[in-house]
Protein backbone atom coordinates (compact mmCIF):
# COMPACT_ATOMS: atom_id res chain seq x y z
CA UNK A 1 0.00 0.00 0.00
CA UNK A 2 2.59 2.46 1.22
CA UNK A 3 4.88 1.36 -1.56
CA UNK A 4 2.17 1.80 -4.14
CA UNK A 5 1.33 5.20 -2.85
CA UNK A 6 4.93 6.32 -3.01
CA UNK A 7 5.11 5.17 -6.57
CA UNK A 8 1.99 7.06 -7.43
CA UNK A 9 3.37 10.07 -5.65
CA UNK A 10 6.55 10.07 -7.65
CA UNK A 11 4.48 10.40 -10.80
CA UNK A 12 3.07 13.59 -9.41
CA UNK A 13 6.40 14.95 -8.25
CA UNK A 14 7.58 18.32 -9.55
CA UNK A 15 10.53 20.53 -8.69
CA UNK A 16 10.87 24.21 -7.87
CA UNK A 17 14.58 24.76 -8.08
CA UNK A 18 16.14 22.54 -5.41
CA UNK A 19 12.80 21.88 -3.79
CA UNK A 20 10.93 18.67 -4.56
CA UNK A 21 7.14 18.73 -4.20
CA UNK A 22 5.22 15.44 -3.85
CA UNK A 23 2.64 16.87 -6.16
CA UNK A 24 2.15 20.18 -7.96
CA UNK A 25 -0.52 21.51 -5.61
CA UNK A 26 0.10 24.10 -2.93
CA UNK A 27 -2.14 26.37 -0.94
CA UNK A 28 -2.32 30.01 -2.01
CA UNK A 29 -1.03 32.47 0.56
CA UNK A 30 -3.76 33.95 2.72
CA UNK A 31 -6.20 31.13 2.11
CA UNK A 32 -4.76 28.50 4.47
CA UNK A 33 -3.82 30.59 7.51
CA UNK A 34 -0.74 29.05 9.16
CA UNK A 35 -1.93 25.52 8.60
CA UNK A 36 -3.71 24.73 11.87
CA UNK A 37 -7.29 25.06 10.64
CA UNK A 38 -6.79 23.00 7.48
CA UNK A 39 -5.05 20.32 9.53
CA UNK A 40 -8.45 19.64 11.10
CA UNK A 41 -9.67 18.57 7.66
CA UNK A 42 -6.81 16.64 6.12
CA UNK A 43 -3.22 15.50 6.50
CA UNK A 44 -1.14 18.48 5.43
CA UNK A 45 1.62 16.21 4.20
CA UNK A 46 -0.64 15.34 1.25
CA UNK A 47 0.06 18.81 -0.15
CA UNK A 48 2.88 19.64 -2.55
CA UNK A 49 3.69 22.56 -0.27
CA UNK A 50 1.89 24.79 2.17
CA UNK A 51 2.16 28.51 1.57
CA UNK A 52 1.30 30.48 4.68
CA UNK A 53 -0.58 33.72 5.18
CA UNK A 54 1.62 36.75 4.47
CA UNK A 55 3.70 37.94 7.39
CA UNK A 56 5.29 41.28 8.16
CA UNK A 57 7.91 42.34 10.65
CA UNK A 58 5.42 43.72 13.17
CA UNK A 59 1.82 42.62 13.67
CA UNK A 60 -0.72 44.26 11.32
CA UNK A 61 -4.31 44.96 12.30
CA UNK A 62 -5.76 44.61 8.85
CA UNK A 63 -8.66 46.54 7.37
CA UNK A 64 -12.11 47.32 8.78
CA UNK A 65 -15.08 45.09 7.83
CA UNK A 66 -16.83 44.24 5.59
CA UNK A 67 -13.68 42.75 4.14
CA UNK A 68 -15.22 40.28 1.74
CA UNK A 69 -18.02 40.18 -0.75
CA UNK A 70 -19.03 37.66 -3.34
CA UNK A 71 -19.25 38.67 -6.99
CA UNK A 72 -20.28 36.70 -10.07
CA UNK A 73 -18.02 33.61 -10.00
CA UNK A 74 -15.58 35.37 -7.73
CA UNK A 75 -15.05 37.28 -4.53
CA UNK A 76 -13.39 40.50 -3.46
CA UNK A 77 -11.32 40.66 -0.28
CA UNK A 78 -9.53 43.41 1.53
CA UNK A 79 -8.10 41.64 4.54
CA UNK A 80 -5.20 44.09 4.50
CA UNK A 81 -2.59 41.61 5.55
CA UNK A 82 -3.82 41.17 9.10
CA UNK A 83 -1.08 39.04 10.66
CA UNK A 84 0.58 38.29 13.95
CA UNK A 85 4.01 39.64 12.97
CA UNK A 86 7.29 37.80 12.66
CA UNK A 87 7.97 37.19 16.34
CA UNK A 88 4.66 35.57 17.25
CA UNK A 89 4.75 33.69 13.97
CA UNK A 90 8.12 32.13 14.76
CA UNK A 91 7.16 31.34 18.35
CA UNK A 92 3.58 30.19 18.05
CA UNK A 93 2.68 29.41 14.46
CA UNK A 94 5.65 27.93 12.63
CA UNK A 95 6.34 25.07 15.10
CA UNK A 96 2.83 23.75 14.59
CA UNK A 97 2.98 23.48 10.81
CA UNK A 98 6.50 21.99 11.00
CA UNK A 99 4.95 18.83 12.45
CA UNK A 100 3.90 17.70 8.98
CA UNK A 101 6.13 16.30 6.30
CA UNK A 102 5.40 19.14 3.90
CA UNK A 103 7.57 21.98 2.58
CA UNK A 104 6.64 25.24 4.26
CA UNK A 105 6.72 28.40 2.19
CA UNK A 106 6.47 31.71 4.00
CA UNK A 107 4.89 34.64 2.19
CA UNK A 108 6.39 37.96 3.23
CA UNK A 109 5.50 41.59 2.81
CA UNK A 110 7.32 44.71 3.89
CA UNK A 111 7.26 48.43 3.31
CA UNK A 112 10.96 48.62 2.42
CA UNK A 113 13.63 46.35 0.97
CA UNK A 114 15.23 46.29 4.42
CA UNK A 115 12.07 44.87 5.96
CA UNK A 116 11.89 42.17 3.31
CA UNK A 117 15.50 41.14 3.84
CA UNK A 118 15.13 41.04 7.62
CA UNK A 119 12.04 38.86 7.27
CA UNK A 120 13.75 36.59 4.77
CA UNK A 121 16.85 36.13 6.96
CA UNK A 122 14.86 35.32 10.04
CA UNK A 123 12.73 32.82 8.14
CA UNK A 124 15.76 31.15 6.61
CA UNK A 125 17.18 30.77 10.11
CA UNK A 126 13.88 29.30 11.23
CA UNK A 127 14.23 26.68 8.50
CA UNK A 128 11.39 27.32 6.07
CA UNK A 129 11.81 25.61 2.70
CA UNK A 130 10.70 28.57 0.64
CA UNK A 131 10.11 32.29 0.78
CA UNK A 132 7.55 33.98 -1.42
CA UNK A 133 7.97 37.71 -1.89
CA UNK A 134 4.57 39.30 -2.02
CA UNK A 135 5.02 42.40 -4.12
CA UNK A 136 1.46 42.33 -5.37
CA UNK A 137 -0.99 42.71 -2.49
CA UNK A 138 -3.54 45.28 -3.60
CA UNK A 139 -4.81 45.73 -0.05
CA UNK A 140 -2.06 47.59 1.73
CA UNK A 141 -1.20 51.17 0.96
CA UNK A 142 2.50 51.16 1.63
CA UNK A 143 5.10 48.88 0.19
CA UNK A 144 4.22 45.58 -1.35
CA UNK A 145 2.52 46.41 -4.58
CA UNK A 146 4.70 49.48 -5.11
CA UNK A 147 7.56 47.05 -5.76
CA UNK A 148 5.39 45.00 -8.05
CA UNK A 149 4.56 47.89 -10.35
CA UNK A 150 7.93 49.62 -10.70
CA UNK A 151 10.59 47.64 -12.49
CA UNK A 152 13.55 49.39 -10.92
CA UNK A 153 12.60 48.93 -7.29
CA UNK A 154 11.34 45.44 -8.13
CA UNK A 155 14.78 44.43 -9.41
CA UNK A 156 16.53 45.97 -6.43
CA UNK A 157 14.23 44.17 -4.00
CA UNK A 158 14.68 40.74 -5.56
CA UNK A 159 18.43 41.25 -5.70
CA UNK A 160 18.61 42.31 -2.04
CA UNK A 161 16.63 39.34 -0.79
CA UNK A 162 18.50 36.94 -3.08
CA UNK A 163 21.79 38.10 -1.58
CA UNK A 164 20.56 37.47 1.90
CA UNK A 165 19.20 33.92 1.68
CA UNK A 166 20.80 30.67 0.59
CA UNK A 167 18.82 27.64 1.46
CA UNK A 168 15.13 28.41 0.95
CA UNK A 169 13.85 28.67 -2.62
CA UNK A 170 13.01 32.23 -3.50
CA UNK A 171 9.65 32.73 -5.17
CA UNK A 172 8.55 36.12 -6.44
CA UNK A 173 4.80 36.69 -6.61
CA UNK A 174 4.06 39.05 -9.46
CA UNK A 175 1.35 41.65 -9.63
CA UNK A 176 -1.29 41.11 -12.31
CA UNK A 177 -1.12 44.88 -12.83
CA UNK A 178 2.59 44.79 -13.66
CA UNK A 179 3.15 46.81 -16.83
CA UNK A 180 4.67 44.03 -18.97
CA UNK A 181 4.42 40.66 -17.31
CA UNK A 182 7.24 39.25 -19.45
CA UNK A 183 9.61 42.00 -18.40
CA UNK A 184 8.92 41.51 -14.70
CA UNK A 185 9.24 37.76 -15.05
CA UNK A 186 12.63 38.08 -16.73
CA UNK A 187 13.76 40.62 -14.15
CA UNK A 188 12.90 38.19 -11.35
CA UNK A 189 14.80 35.43 -13.14
CA UNK A 190 17.83 37.61 -13.78
CA UNK A 191 17.99 38.75 -10.19
CA UNK A 192 18.12 35.16 -9.02
CA UNK A 193 14.56 34.12 -8.16
CA UNK A 194 14.10 30.32 -8.17
CA UNK A 195 10.48 30.59 -9.30
CA UNK A 196 7.77 33.11 -9.96
CA UNK A 197 4.17 32.82 -8.90
CA UNK A 198 1.07 34.50 -10.31
CA UNK A 199 -1.49 35.86 -10.22
CA UNK A 200 -2.36 37.74 -7.07
CA UNK A 201 -5.85 39.21 -6.81
CA UNK A 202 -6.89 41.95 -9.25
CA UNK A 203 -8.01 45.30 -7.80
CA UNK A 204 -11.80 45.43 -7.93
CA UNK A 205 -14.85 47.07 -6.42
CA UNK A 206 -18.53 46.35 -5.88
CA UNK A 207 -21.31 48.62 -4.71
CA UNK A 208 -24.61 47.64 -3.09
CA UNK A 209 -27.16 49.53 -5.18
CA UNK A 210 -29.73 49.35 -2.41
CA UNK A 211 -27.65 51.00 0.28
CA UNK A 212 -25.44 52.80 -2.27
CA UNK A 213 -22.43 51.86 -0.16
CA UNK A 214 -19.32 49.96 -1.22
CA UNK A 215 -19.60 46.27 -0.32
CA UNK A 216 -16.00 46.39 0.91
CA UNK A 217 -15.39 48.97 3.63
CA UNK A 218 -12.06 49.94 2.03
CA UNK A 219 -13.91 50.37 -1.30
CA UNK A 220 -11.27 48.62 -3.39
CA UNK A 221 -10.21 45.04 -2.71
CA UNK A 222 -8.77 42.16 -4.69
CA UNK A 223 -10.78 39.91 -7.01
CA UNK A 224 -10.10 36.17 -6.88
CA UNK A 225 -11.85 32.96 -7.88
CA UNK A 226 -13.04 31.36 -11.14
CA UNK A 227 -13.92 34.73 -12.68
CA UNK A 228 -10.21 35.61 -13.03
CA UNK A 229 -9.02 32.21 -14.23
CA UNK A 230 -8.80 33.08 -17.95
CA UNK A 231 -6.74 36.18 -17.12
CA UNK A 232 -4.46 34.13 -14.87
CA UNK A 233 -3.98 31.36 -17.45
CA UNK A 234 -3.00 33.98 -20.03
CA UNK A 235 -0.46 35.59 -17.69
CA UNK A 236 1.03 32.23 -16.74
CA UNK A 237 1.34 31.44 -20.44
CA UNK A 238 3.12 34.72 -21.12
CA UNK A 239 5.37 34.53 -18.06
CA UNK A 240 6.40 30.93 -18.62
CA UNK A 241 7.43 31.63 -22.19
CA UNK A 242 9.58 34.53 -20.99
CA UNK A 243 11.64 32.62 -18.42
CA UNK A 244 13.31 29.26 -17.76
CA UNK A 245 12.61 29.14 -14.01
CA UNK A 246 9.43 27.38 -12.93
CA UNK A 247 6.14 29.25 -12.77
CA UNK A 248 3.54 28.62 -10.07
CA UNK A 249 0.09 29.32 -11.47
CA UNK A 250 -2.97 30.36 -9.53
CA UNK A 251 -6.23 32.21 -9.91
CA UNK A 252 -9.60 30.49 -9.75
CA UNK A 253 -8.44 26.88 -9.65
CA UNK A 254 -11.23 24.72 -8.26
CA UNK A 255 -10.67 21.35 -9.98
CA UNK A 256 -7.86 19.13 -11.18
CA UNK A 257 -8.73 20.11 -14.73
CA UNK A 258 -8.31 23.77 -13.89
CA UNK A 259 -4.85 22.91 -12.53
CA UNK A 260 -4.00 20.96 -15.69
CA UNK A 261 -5.08 23.98 -17.74
CA UNK A 262 -2.51 26.14 -15.92
CA UNK A 263 0.14 23.46 -16.36
CA UNK A 264 -0.56 23.09 -20.08
CA UNK A 265 -0.16 26.87 -20.29
CA UNK A 266 3.26 26.57 -18.68
CA UNK A 267 2.93 26.24 -14.91
CA UNK A 268 5.13 23.74 -13.06
CA UNK A 269 3.05 23.90 -9.91
CA UNK A 270 -0.26 25.49 -8.95
CA UNK A 271 -1.85 27.04 -5.89
CA UNK A 272 -5.43 26.74 -4.70
CA UNK A 273 -6.93 29.77 -2.96
CA UNK A 274 -10.56 30.79 -3.04
CA UNK A 275 -11.61 27.18 -3.71
CA UNK A 276 -10.52 26.33 -0.17
CA UNK A 277 -13.22 28.71 1.06
CA UNK A 278 -15.76 26.77 -0.99
CA UNK A 279 -14.49 23.44 0.30
CA UNK A 280 -11.69 22.98 2.87
CA UNK A 281 -10.55 19.84 1.01
CA UNK A 282 -10.23 21.66 -2.31
CA UNK A 283 -6.42 21.48 -2.62
CA UNK A 284 -6.42 17.71 -2.06
CA UNK A 285 -9.22 17.24 -4.54
CA UNK A 286 -7.28 19.25 -7.10
CA UNK A 287 -4.26 16.98 -6.62
CA UNK A 288 -6.49 13.95 -7.04
CA UNK A 289 -7.98 15.50 -10.16
CA UNK A 290 -4.56 16.01 -11.72
CA UNK A 291 -3.75 12.36 -11.06
CA UNK A 292 -7.03 11.25 -12.62
CA UNK A 293 -6.43 13.41 -15.68
CA UNK A 294 -2.92 11.97 -16.07
CA UNK A 295 -4.32 8.44 -15.91
CA UNK A 296 -6.99 9.26 -18.51
CA UNK A 297 -4.39 10.73 -20.82
CA UNK A 298 -1.70 8.14 -20.17
CA UNK A 299 0.77 10.69 -18.89
CA UNK A 300 3.42 9.29 -16.59
CA UNK A 301 4.84 12.37 -14.98
CA UNK A 302 3.23 15.61 -13.84
CA UNK A 303 6.20 17.59 -15.01
CA UNK A 304 5.46 16.44 -18.56
CA UNK A 305 2.25 18.48 -18.52
CA UNK A 306 4.09 21.77 -18.14
CA UNK A 307 3.79 23.76 -21.35
CA UNK A 308 2.36 20.79 -23.25
CA UNK A 309 -0.45 22.71 -24.89
CA UNK A 310 -0.86 21.67 -28.52
CA UNK A 311 -0.99 24.22 -31.30
Amino acid at each position, binding site marked *: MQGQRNKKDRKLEVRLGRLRLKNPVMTASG*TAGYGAELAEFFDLSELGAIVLKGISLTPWQ*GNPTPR*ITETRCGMINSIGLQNVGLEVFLREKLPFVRQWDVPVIANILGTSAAEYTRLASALEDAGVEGIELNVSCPNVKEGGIAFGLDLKSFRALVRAVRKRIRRPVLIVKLSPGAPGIEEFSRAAENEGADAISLINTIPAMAIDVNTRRPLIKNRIGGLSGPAIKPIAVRMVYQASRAVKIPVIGMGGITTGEDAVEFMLAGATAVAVGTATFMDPMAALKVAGGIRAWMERHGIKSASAITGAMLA
Partner: protein
Amino acid sequence: MFGVRSCERDPLLKRPFCYFRKRGDEIDILYRVVGKMTSIMKGLRPGDKVEILGPLGNIYPMEEAECGAKIPLVIAGGVGIASVYPLLERLKGKGILFYGGRNKKEILLRKELREISKKMVVATDDGSLGFRGTAVEAAGDFLKGRDREGFVLYACGPNGMLKAASGLGVNGYIASEEKMACGIGVCLGCAVRTKDGYKRACKDGPVFRTGEILFD
Protein backbone atom coordinates in the same frame (compact mmCIF):
# COMPACT_ATOMS: atom_id res chain seq x y z
CA MET B 1 -23.65 27.26 12.92
CA PHE B 2 -22.85 25.51 9.68
CA GLY B 3 -22.32 26.45 6.06
CA VAL B 4 -24.59 25.67 3.14
CA ARG B 5 -23.49 25.71 -0.48
CA SER B 6 -25.40 25.11 -3.66
CA CYS B 7 -24.08 22.25 -5.75
CA GLU B 8 -24.51 24.57 -8.70
CA ARG B 9 -21.44 26.68 -9.23
CA ASP B 10 -23.00 30.02 -8.45
CA PRO B 11 -22.92 31.27 -5.68
CA LEU B 12 -19.41 30.10 -4.89
CA LEU B 13 -19.25 30.57 -1.16
CA LYS B 14 -21.07 28.81 1.62
CA ARG B 15 -23.61 30.80 3.61
CA PRO B 16 -23.75 30.55 7.41
CA PHE B 17 -26.92 29.32 9.10
CA CYS B 18 -27.85 28.22 12.59
CA TYR B 19 -29.03 24.80 13.56
CA PHE B 20 -32.65 25.68 14.10
CA ARG B 21 -33.77 22.17 14.96
CA LYS B 22 -31.79 18.97 14.76
CA ARG B 23 -33.10 15.46 15.14
CA GLY B 24 -30.98 12.54 14.10
CA ASP B 25 -29.87 12.99 10.53
CA GLU B 26 -32.27 15.83 9.87
CA ILE B 27 -31.56 19.50 10.22
CA ASP B 28 -34.16 22.24 10.03
CA ILE B 29 -33.06 25.70 8.94
CA LEU B 30 -35.19 28.74 9.63
CA TYR B 31 -34.18 31.33 7.11
CA ARG B 32 -35.25 34.51 5.42
CA VAL B 33 -34.98 34.77 1.65
CA VAL B 34 -32.70 37.75 1.04
CA GLY B 35 -30.48 36.92 -1.92
CA LYS B 36 -28.91 34.35 -4.18
CA MET B 37 -28.36 31.38 -1.93
CA THR B 38 -31.55 31.72 0.07
CA SER B 39 -33.50 31.98 -3.20
CA ILE B 40 -31.91 28.76 -4.39
CA MET B 41 -32.78 27.14 -1.05
CA LYS B 42 -36.38 28.25 -1.45
CA GLY B 43 -36.55 26.54 -4.84
CA LEU B 44 -35.11 23.23 -3.62
CA ARG B 45 -37.25 20.14 -3.99
CA PRO B 46 -37.02 16.81 -2.20
CA GLY B 47 -34.00 14.93 -3.53
CA ASP B 48 -32.09 18.06 -4.53
CA LYS B 49 -28.63 18.28 -3.06
CA VAL B 50 -26.76 20.99 -1.21
CA GLU B 51 -23.36 20.84 0.42
CA ILE B 52 -23.19 21.38 4.15
CA LEU B 53 -20.08 21.95 6.26
CA GLY B 54 -20.39 21.95 10.01
CA PRO B 55 -20.68 22.27 12.88
CA LEU B 56 -18.60 25.44 12.79
CA GLY B 57 -17.73 27.91 15.53
CA ASN B 58 -18.85 28.01 19.14
CA ILE B 59 -22.24 28.00 20.89
CA TYR B 60 -23.80 30.00 23.72
CA PRO B 61 -22.24 29.02 27.09
CA MET B 62 -25.07 28.10 29.44
CA GLU B 63 -23.55 27.30 32.86
CA GLU B 64 -24.75 30.35 34.78
CA ALA B 65 -28.25 29.98 33.38
CA GLU B 66 -28.57 26.23 33.74
CA CYS B 67 -27.36 26.09 37.32
CA GLY B 68 -29.94 28.77 38.13
CA ALA B 69 -27.39 31.39 39.21
CA LYS B 70 -28.72 33.86 36.65
CA ILE B 71 -31.93 34.42 34.76
CA PRO B 72 -31.40 34.16 31.00
CA LEU B 73 -32.46 37.35 29.21
CA VAL B 74 -32.74 36.47 25.53
CA ILE B 75 -32.96 39.12 22.81
CA ALA B 76 -33.49 38.22 19.18
CA GLY B 77 -33.89 40.41 16.13
CA GLY B 78 -35.28 39.12 12.84
CA VAL B 79 -33.86 35.74 11.84
CA GLY B 80 -31.69 35.96 14.97
CA ILE B 81 -34.56 33.91 16.36
CA ALA B 82 -33.11 30.87 14.59
CA SER B 83 -30.04 31.18 16.77
CA VAL B 84 -31.80 31.54 20.14
CA TYR B 85 -34.58 29.02 19.51
CA PRO B 86 -32.48 25.94 20.37
CA LEU B 87 -31.01 27.90 23.29
CA LEU B 88 -34.49 28.54 24.68
CA GLU B 89 -35.29 24.86 24.27
CA ARG B 90 -32.21 23.80 26.19
CA LEU B 91 -32.95 26.38 28.88
CA LYS B 92 -36.15 24.40 29.55
CA GLY B 93 -38.54 27.29 30.08
CA LYS B 94 -36.16 29.47 32.06
CA GLY B 95 -35.54 32.07 29.35
CA ILE B 96 -37.18 35.48 29.12
CA LEU B 97 -37.44 36.34 25.46
CA PHE B 98 -37.54 39.76 23.79
CA TYR B 99 -38.18 39.23 20.14
CA GLY B 100 -38.19 42.11 17.68
CA GLY B 101 -38.98 42.58 14.03
CA ARG B 102 -40.02 45.29 11.64
CA ASN B 103 -43.65 44.26 11.71
CA LYS B 104 -46.10 41.53 12.66
CA LYS B 105 -45.28 39.50 9.57
CA GLU B 106 -41.66 39.19 10.63
CA ILE B 107 -42.54 37.64 13.98
CA LEU B 108 -42.51 33.88 13.52
CA LEU B 109 -43.42 30.85 15.62
CA ARG B 110 -45.15 32.78 18.36
CA LYS B 111 -46.92 29.76 19.76
CA GLU B 112 -43.82 27.54 19.95
CA LEU B 113 -41.71 30.31 21.41
CA ARG B 114 -44.26 31.06 24.10
CA GLU B 115 -44.19 27.41 25.10
CA ILE B 116 -40.43 27.21 25.49
CA SER B 117 -39.97 30.61 27.18
CA LYS B 118 -40.75 31.70 30.71
CA LYS B 119 -41.99 34.99 29.36
CA MET B 120 -42.06 36.41 25.83
CA VAL B 121 -42.27 40.04 24.80
CA VAL B 122 -42.73 40.83 21.12
CA ALA B 123 -41.63 44.21 19.77
CA THR B 124 -42.26 45.60 16.30
CA ASP B 125 -40.95 48.80 14.78
CA ASP B 126 -44.39 49.73 13.52
CA GLY B 127 -46.30 48.54 16.57
CA SER B 128 -48.32 46.07 14.49
CA LEU B 129 -47.73 43.48 17.20
CA GLY B 130 -46.78 43.85 20.88
CA PHE B 131 -44.48 46.63 22.04
CA ARG B 132 -43.88 49.45 19.54
CA GLY B 133 -40.13 49.80 19.33
CA THR B 134 -37.14 47.52 19.36
CA ALA B 135 -36.62 44.36 21.34
CA VAL B 136 -33.72 46.04 23.15
CA GLU B 137 -35.96 48.92 24.20
CA ALA B 138 -38.52 46.45 25.47
CA ALA B 139 -35.81 44.64 27.42
CA GLY B 140 -34.60 48.00 28.81
CA ASP B 141 -38.13 48.76 30.08
CA PHE B 142 -38.32 45.36 31.69
CA LEU B 143 -34.97 45.81 33.42
CA LYS B 144 -35.96 49.12 35.01
CA GLY B 145 -35.79 48.72 38.76
CA ARG B 146 -34.44 45.18 38.45
CA ASP B 147 -30.93 44.14 39.45
CA ARG B 148 -29.02 43.57 36.23
CA GLU B 149 -26.54 41.36 38.04
CA GLY B 150 -29.25 38.74 38.32
CA PHE B 151 -29.41 38.25 34.54
CA VAL B 152 -27.28 36.74 31.84
CA LEU B 153 -27.73 38.17 28.34
CA TYR B 154 -28.08 36.17 25.11
CA ALA B 155 -28.49 38.34 22.05
CA CYS B 156 -28.58 37.65 18.32
CA GLY B 157 -29.52 40.01 15.53
CA PRO B 158 -28.15 42.70 13.26
CA ASN B 159 -25.10 44.69 14.35
CA GLY B 160 -27.07 47.75 15.43
CA MET B 161 -29.19 45.60 17.73
CA LEU B 162 -26.17 43.89 19.23
CA LYS B 163 -24.58 47.23 19.96
CA ALA B 164 -27.74 48.45 21.69
CA ALA B 165 -28.07 45.19 23.61
CA SER B 166 -24.47 45.51 24.82
CA GLY B 167 -25.47 48.88 26.25
CA LEU B 168 -28.13 47.36 28.52
CA GLY B 169 -25.57 46.74 31.25
CA VAL B 170 -26.31 43.04 31.48
CA ASN B 171 -23.32 40.72 31.12
CA GLY B 172 -23.60 37.71 28.88
CA TYR B 173 -23.18 36.69 25.25
CA ILE B 174 -23.86 38.11 21.85
CA ALA B 175 -23.70 36.32 18.52
CA SER B 176 -22.18 38.20 15.59
CA GLU B 177 -23.65 38.13 12.10
CA GLU B 178 -20.47 39.16 10.29
CA LYS B 179 -20.25 38.09 6.65
CA MET B 180 -18.18 34.97 6.06
CA ALA B 181 -16.18 33.45 3.22
CA CYS B 182 -14.44 30.30 4.47
CA GLY B 183 -16.26 29.57 7.74
CA ILE B 184 -13.20 27.70 9.06
CA GLY B 185 -10.92 30.48 10.19
CA VAL B 186 -8.46 30.74 7.31
CA CYS B 187 -9.54 33.81 5.35
CA LEU B 188 -9.85 36.43 8.12
CA GLY B 189 -12.83 37.84 6.27
CA CYS B 190 -15.24 37.67 9.21
CA ALA B 191 -13.13 39.81 11.48
CA VAL B 192 -14.80 41.22 14.59
CA ARG B 193 -13.05 44.08 16.37
CA THR B 194 -12.53 43.13 20.01
CA LYS B 195 -10.59 44.47 22.96
CA ASP B 196 -7.83 42.04 22.01
CA GLY B 197 -7.69 42.96 18.32
CA TYR B 198 -9.61 41.36 15.47
CA LYS B 199 -11.11 37.93 16.11
CA ARG B 200 -12.79 35.58 13.67
CA ALA B 201 -16.58 35.32 13.95
CA CYS B 202 -16.54 31.89 12.32
CA LYS B 203 -13.90 30.25 14.51
CA ASP B 204 -13.49 32.34 17.68
CA GLY B 205 -17.25 33.12 17.59
CA PRO B 206 -19.91 33.66 16.44
CA VAL B 207 -20.69 34.00 20.17
CA PHE B 208 -18.64 36.58 22.09
CA ARG B 209 -18.85 37.90 25.66
CA THR B 210 -20.57 41.26 26.07
CA GLY B 211 -17.95 43.99 26.27
CA GLU B 212 -15.55 41.94 24.19
CA ILE B 213 -16.67 43.36 20.84
CA LEU B 214 -15.87 47.00 20.09
CA PHE B 215 -18.73 48.57 18.12
CA ASP B 216 -17.85 51.73 16.25
